């Protein structure tokens, strides 16, 4: 038998190059762009219709999400049950979702059933009618979920934190309130739908087995001029208004744990410091071995988990630290968070830790670029910012080359305790 040394890590390679399949671009007859990642071994396809119809575009709370989730609740020829039956019968999945900057309608289907399932999606996108009865049920049920979620310290903290960063009037900051469920009505939905779910506001992303037949099917149903919709009136959004009251507590008498959010407004992916700060963030709170996890979970046992992140939005961005800790150790946890922040400002990250973070980030990048669906998500992440694939090349170059002193400079530039908003929900 081979003599083995169990104390020593076996020889390993650092990731040198990451192969990524790039999206190709074509246009439908009506000029709607179709981007495709043709990859994977199964005969399956994901078709994502992406609309600029997110929180940022809505005129009132609940508008974007309600329109999006009501799409499948009725068209002029099919009711909600018929739509669901038609999709489910072929084992397909219809998924809808809204983010800050966009809304999507996604079809997952076996290629062999595409010609049966896509016509249903066509109706849902082009011909939703928002039946009043369905809307009433939807709002009532949504409100119940809203009430349940509002009992969770983590949910309260997440929403309140966005308000503090962007301001209560800014589209990224507005929080849904009880009363909003009474205000929104069918005509608000129809307005938003007509002006946002239309061909010139749509992009299509394909992932999986993308054959010529897939393009033809899509062009047949979505390439015409029958879904131009209403012109979009340009609306100016309220200016961002970050709170000046930097220490906030939302008291919850019966809390066993307090949710902590600390952070500040930052920039988005288009900024030169974005990649460098991603590395800094990873060291600080971006992975299981991060400074925050090592100290606050693995050394002190104050929490089940703690992390930090840099969030990029089309019209801004922010940095945040997030955790839930026992109420009895809340103030100690806060102290430790600031100690870790200070440590990055004062002392350079050691060579071994930095190498570990570089390798970890490259490995994560590789994982996130594996398989057709992951590749499509990566692509979506640059598409909206008008960035090209060189964005990823720059990312890899930064991860490989950034120095410890650059990281310390960045910490001094951005991790200033006085610039941070601190929110506690629970008790401290």
């Amino acid at each position: 038998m081979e003599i083995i040394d169990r104390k020593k890590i076996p020889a390993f390679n650092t990731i040198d190059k990451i192969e990524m399949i790039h999206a190709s671009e074509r246009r439908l007859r009506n000029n709607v762009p179709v981007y495709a990642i043709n990859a994977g071994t199964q005969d399956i396809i994901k078709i994502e219709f992406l609309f600029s119809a997110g929180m940022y575009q809505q005129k009132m709370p609940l508008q974007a999400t309600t329109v999006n989730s009501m799409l499948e609740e009725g068209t002029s020829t099919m009711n909600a049950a018929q739509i669901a039956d038609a999709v489910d019968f072929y084992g397909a999945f219809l998924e809808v979702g809204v983010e800050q900057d966009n809304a999507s309608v996604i079809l997952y289907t076996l290629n062999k059933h595409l010609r049966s399932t896509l016509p249903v999606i066509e109706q849902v996108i082009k011909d939703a009618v928002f039946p009043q009865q369905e809307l009433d049920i939807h709002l009532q049920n949504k409100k119940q979920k809203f009430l349940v979620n509002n009992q969770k310290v983590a949910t309260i903290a997440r929403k309140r934190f966005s308000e503090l960063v962007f301001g209560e009037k800014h589209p990224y900051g507005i929080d849904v309130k009880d009363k909003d469920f009474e205000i929104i009505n069918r005509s608000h939905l129809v307005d938003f739908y007509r002006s946002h779910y239309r061909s010139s506001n749509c992009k299509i992303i394909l992932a999986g087995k993308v054959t010529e037949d897939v393009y033809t099917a899509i062009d047949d149903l979505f390439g015409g001029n029958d879904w131009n919709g209403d012109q979009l009136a340009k609306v100016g959004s309220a200016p961002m208004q970050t709170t000046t009251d930097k220490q906030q507590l939302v008291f919850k008498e019966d809390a066993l744990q307090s949710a902590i959010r600390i952070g500040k407004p930052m920039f988005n992916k288009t900024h030169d410091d974005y990649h460098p700060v991603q590395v800094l963030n990873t060291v600080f709170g971006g992975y299981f071995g991060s400074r925050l996890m090592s100290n606050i979970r693995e050394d002190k046992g104050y929490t089940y988990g703690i992390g930090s992140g840099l969030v990029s939005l089309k019209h801004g961005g922010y940095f945040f630290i997030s955790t839930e800790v026992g109420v009895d150790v809340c103030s100690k946890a806060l102290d430790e968070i600031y100690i870790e922040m200070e440590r990055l400002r004062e002392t350079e990250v050691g060579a071994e830790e930095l190498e570990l973070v570089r390798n970890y980030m490259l490995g994560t990048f590789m994982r996130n670029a594996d398989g057709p669906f992951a590749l499509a998500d990566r692509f979506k992440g640059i598409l909206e910012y008008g960035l090209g694939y060189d964005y990823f090349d720059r990312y890899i170059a930064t991860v490989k080359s950034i120095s410890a002193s650059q990281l310390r400079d960045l910490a001094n530039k951005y991790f200033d305790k006085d610039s941070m908003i601190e929110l506690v929900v629970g008790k401290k």
Partner: protein
Amino acid sequence: MIQYEKFQLENGLKVIVHKDKATPLACINILYNVGARDEDPEQTGFAHLFEHLMFGGSVNIPNYDEPLQMVGGENNAFTTNDITNYYLTLPVSNLETGFWLESDRMLSLAFSEKSLEVQRNVVIEEFKQRYLNQPYGDVWLLLRPMAYKVHSYKWDTIGKEISHIENAKIDDVKNFFKKFYCPNNAIMVVAGNVETSEVKRLAEKWFGPIPKGPDNKRNLQPEPEQTEARSLTVERDVPVDAIYKAYHMCSRYDKEYYAVDLISDILSRGNSSRMHNSLIKEKMLFSDISAYVLGDFDKGLFVISGKLTQGVTMEQADQAIDEELKRMITEPVAADELTKVKNKMEASHVFGEVDILNKATNLAVSELLGDAGMVNQEVEKYLAVTDKQIMEQASIIFRKENCSTLYYKSKK
């Protein structure tokens, strides 16, 4: 179809290799045949606490995570009532690092007092975060002991109570390790762009020298048949009333399992399902309702859980659920409806084969259930289910005296 090869080391470790050329990554999934059901009733939550301790350093490697991150890898684990499963993914060129790490912690842990102390606290915070400080978070802490009086499924993986975790001693940890964390109690799956010969070489090299452990004959007391309806009413500070109904059903091993799983799909999978259309949309009694099987390896539970619409009473809710269940017993499922849930099941399997980690975990679980090859027979088994089998299972399961009901009321 998931292709695989299988071999076993002399110490009893079973190894399964799945080759997938499409990915630059590899994954190692190690399943230990131990779960919360194997715990001492006075030391519940131990299997899960132990999972945390598996990351607290092994005999030759003081820190598990750091070297893995150093080679671009990532890992996690989960504990259920039946099994404890560990998995990692890394660039395939660094596969050996995974073997080095996993074999050392199978060989022996470091058993550090500090790690035990910290992970006790972490798990207690997890207990609070997921079970106590969440609306409806304690449902399973209430439902399990109601449904099970004898079998060790009567406690949740997190444990019966926080004190069991607080009282865990290092000697308990050692004993647990010796008993369950040995090669003959584990199944390893390696998936990715790998050759079986190379996996064999690495397995012999790193896992071969680990001594075989004791044979664990699991001898759990079976749950006697429930003979009368059970119920419990609690009041909590939640905004909405909820109802939970748990019925005893067959085990994951039984051939009847597939029909029962399809019953849950007919009732509540997707917006075309019966309960969604009837109870949420038509009668507007629930804002949310679902039916599901837990997939337990011993005789398990079929659960229905729903949140009541404002103004609806528990009696109305209960009765409406009963009516839907009665329909399953008395009316054969329409051919189209049965085809629909089968198609959905088939498509889910195809989509599930995109991810190597998912494939690896499924292979490991199937091997534990009897044969890794079962992953490729699952779909056929679902497709073979008949309307008659569905009615038969429904009539066996959906009996009042077979049910435990939890009325979870909003304190207003």
